[in-house]
């Protein structure tokens, strides 16, 4: 049972790097895409830790609702951050 530990380690390391990049990014649309990628990685971690019901609740929130709301707000305001 070495495989799930390796997968959890790789996914959590990549998500830490992406969280830092999301903080320092100036283009907010690219930051939205980073958030979607973090959501996919968290979905993988939840699935390997044997919680598929949390996956069912987390996947539409992180992949549909949050980018939809951020893109609507970006349409009303500006895209680049000064």
């Amino acid at each position, binding site marked *: 049972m070495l495989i799930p530990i390796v997968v959890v380690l790789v996914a959590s390391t990549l998500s830490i790097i992406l969280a830092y990049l999301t903080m320092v990014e100036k283009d907010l*649309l690219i930051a939205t*895409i980073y958030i979607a990628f973090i959501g996919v990685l968290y979905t993988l971690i939840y699935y390997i830790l044997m919680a598929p019901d949390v996956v069912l609740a987390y*996947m539409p929130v992180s992949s549909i609702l949050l980018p939809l709301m951020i893109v609507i707000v970006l*349409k009303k305001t500006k895209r680049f951050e000064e």
Partner: protein
Amino acid sequence: MVLVEIVFNVTQVLEMVIFVYIASMVMFFVRILRGPTIFDRVIAVDALSCDLAVFMALIALYTGNPHIAFPMIFIALWAYVLDLYVSKYLEFRDIGE
């Protein structure tokens, strides 16, 4: 038949395929870091979420517990919505609300 069974053991094949998918996940991550335009990043997220469906089936077969594999059909349904959002926002400057 015994030799064939030893050579093509299912568990070893599953471990090899899981390692290949981890390697491809890291490659998509590198493309997300280096991507010059937005579209490269979006299409890397799309490819990663399609790999995730395969990953769930492989883990469910590897751990011998097939009743945890039901979220992969929803991931296959919802993987492409981010593409439509970003393309409609960049092409028409609104998303219809």
